[in-house]
């Protein structure tokens, strides 16, 4: 019994310790983002790696999700004779919820895990220590550009995902005989800039911060062995996915996005 309580206690201490470490780490990243020299070359490379190389998966997934939404929405709306609202249904669910969330989950799987693995491997092969010995802060050189790239790339990918999804829903809807015009005007009249689009954007940025922070932190603190790196990579995917969904709920609940 006391063992169990002790276990809970040690877990709690560990958790608080971890939260503190993440906070310190984020502070360090922020400080590095303000420090000279600005790592523009490194940042652009990361935008390429995280953003451009995620384009295909994002666009294909977007179209597929939009098409499924179109199908499901059409079947449901048809019962109420309200198939003209298909654009509204597809657009709003993509913009408010599915766009940012699915983009973040996909990016976690593709880019977040890669980020953790890369930083972890750099740590295991002493590349981070090598930078330190050259008087280069590895957080400044490696971590901060990656984290910043993740934060900026997420809303961009999310917007592309949404537009691809809307296009996917459009294709399905028009195939089933919905008037293309009513699909689009349905969208235009029901989507509000501040309520929906801005909220979607905020969600994507928050998810970008989460994924960027978790993936870099896990990589940076990975045990420098191949096993440690693989554990860290798995942890990134699990933690980031859970955080995305939990934060999604709270953003939705608190800001009504």
């Amino acid at each position, binding site marked *: 019994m006391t063992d169990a309580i002790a276990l809970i206690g040690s877990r709690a201490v560990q958790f608080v310790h971890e939260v503190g470490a993440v906070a310190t780490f984020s502070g360090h990243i922020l400080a590095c983002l303000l420090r000279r020299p600005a790592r523009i*070359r490194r940042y*652009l*490379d990361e*935008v*390429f790696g995280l*953003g*451009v190389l995620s*384009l295909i998966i994002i666009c294909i997934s977007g179209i597929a999700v939009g098409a499924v939404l179109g199908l499901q929405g059409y079947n449901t709306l048809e*019962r*109420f*004779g*309200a198939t*003209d*609202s298909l654009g*509204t249904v597809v*657009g709003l669910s993509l*913009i408010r919820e599915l766009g940012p969330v699915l983009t973040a989950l996909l990016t976690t799987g593709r880019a977040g895990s890669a980020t953790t693995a890369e930083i972890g491997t750099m740590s295991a092969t002493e590349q981070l220590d090598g930078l330190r010995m050259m008087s280069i802060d590895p957080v400044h050189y490696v971590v901060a550009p990656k984290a910043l790239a993740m934060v900026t790339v997420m*809303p*961009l*990918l999310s*917007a*592309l995902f*949404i*537009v691809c999804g809307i296009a996917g829903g459009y294709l399905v809807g028009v195939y089933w005989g919905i008037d293309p015009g009513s699909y689009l*005007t*349905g*969208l*235009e*009249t*029901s*989507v*509000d*800039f*501040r*309520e*929906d*689009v*801005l909220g*979607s*954007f905020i969600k994507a940025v928050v998810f970008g911060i989460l994924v960027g922070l978790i993936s870099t932190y896990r990589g940076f603190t990975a045990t420098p062995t191949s096993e440690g790196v693989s554990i860290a990579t798995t942890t990134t995917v699990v933690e980031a996915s859970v955080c995305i969904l939990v934060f999604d709920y709270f953003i939705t609940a608190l800001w009504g996005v």
Partner: protein
Amino acid sequence: MDSNRNRDIAVGLFVLASLAAIGYLALQLGGARLGSDEDLTVFARFDEIGGLKVRAPVVIAGVRVGQVDQIVLADDYRAKVRMAVANDLELPIDSSASIVTSGVLGDRYISIQLGGEEQYLEDGEEIEFVESAVVLERLIGQLIHNTNIEDEED
């Protein structure tokens, strides 16, 4: 350096495409306008606004021309609604505003029917002819009625 250049071009294209997507969502779908101070502000008082909310669309002939800015209870205990509409609109002073419900989702919005006068509403003026919110129950009744008929046909 050549691979850097190709990479930069790819990043540039990616950012442009994404910004285009954001722009489409924000401007075309979201109806955000750059520089909202150029809006024409008009008021209308309703006895009953139903579920009308701030940021609900304002339409003319079904085309979105602006949105509800603010809803307050006026001195005469009617709902005073402030609307921001595109400033190039010429609304005759005898235009009327009505609160209607869109589709099954039941979102309320304001529809403006143009009048025939030669004089136009100025910024900050009030639309005098109003039609309050349509009773929701009637719409639902109609819906249920339609569904029943369809079921019987099946």
